[in-house]
């Protein structure tokens, strides 16, 4: 299996993230208010944290090409969020 260390890191980050998001979602359903936006924000941070993990892991493995793709994707997501905020 290729990219074993990338896979391990991605799995660890996603598993931790999913546990946190689930806990925040349940808290938001019980408490309501601002917790809802916090939980949704945490859920939307999961793909970003996955991409960041890929950047670190691919860089460690010397696969700069794939790390660069992840960096570009992070920038694309960040710029679309920023433009949407500016349009609001």
């Amino acid at each position, binding site marked *: *299996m*290729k*990219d074993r260390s*990338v*896979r*391990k890191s*991605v*799995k660890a980050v*996603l*598993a931790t*993230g*999913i546990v946190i*998001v*689930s806990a925040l*979602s*349940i808290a*938001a*359903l019980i408490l*309501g208010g601002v917790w*809802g*936006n916090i*939980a*949704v*924000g945490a*859920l*939307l941070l*999961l*793909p*970003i944290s*996955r*991409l960041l993990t*890929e950047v670190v892991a691919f860089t460690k493995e010397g696969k700069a090409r*794939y790390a660069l*793709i*992840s960096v*570009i*994707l992070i920038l*694309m*997501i960040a710029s*679309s*969020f920023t*433009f*949407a*905020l500016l*349009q*609001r």
Partner: protein
Amino acid sequence: MDAYHLFLLLFGGFFIGIIGSMFGIGGGLFAVPLFHFGFGLDLHQSIAASLVGIVASSMMSAMAKVHLGVLSIRLSKVLEIPSITGAIFGSLVIGALPINLLKILFSVVGFSMAFNMLKNPFKIVLGKQVRKHYIPADTKGEFADHYRDPSNGKTVRFEAQNIKWAVPISLSAGFLSSILGIGGGIVNVPLITQLCKCPIKVASATSGYKLGITACAGSVVYFAKGYIVPDVTLTFSLGILAGSYLGMAILLRTKPILVELFFGLLLTAVTLKMVLSI
């Protein structure tokens, strides 16, 4: 939110999570009507909730599949940028193109992809020899990999082919999915099986892995604009998280030919819906 709606959202999310995780599709096809007609959310809010659900589904199935080797991270990386770029370009030119012509084009391509997908299951029914979609390969190539298939205990070796063609087609797929409002997965899975010659399970897992990023790029825009209804979205996402985990377990234990059959039928249904809307 009353108990009835809570149950409906959790169950709906659970069901869509299973389907999405099994076939590598987002599930927006089912989720948007559920929110729009079932919960009376406006279309923007429905799409926003559906996109957040896709992010949840993709992350859960990625977490469950990534260590098994059933998904190709490298192939997913190569196809992600063209797919998102196509989707962004599609959203910019929407309204300026003859939609019916694009629908006809999609219908032709969709039926041919469904035919290819259903060919092997029908050959088995007729007792004929089946030719594998994927090319068995060693693991030395850049896009070669292997995984152990729990449905038959065998190690499946594969190598993604035609990458130079897959990139522009992925761009067109992103464009089409944005223009026609169809999910990315329904185009990605046939693209990965039929053009890149990967096994159906790898196609489904890789598509699901890739979709999370595309859906996130869309969701953050809706989030920034305040279209997300947190309680509905989060309840749905909790259902999705559970369903995706189960869907992944079902996918791994199902024979590849059955996955091809069900995906082919799903693709036929989506294409028929497109034909009827012309």
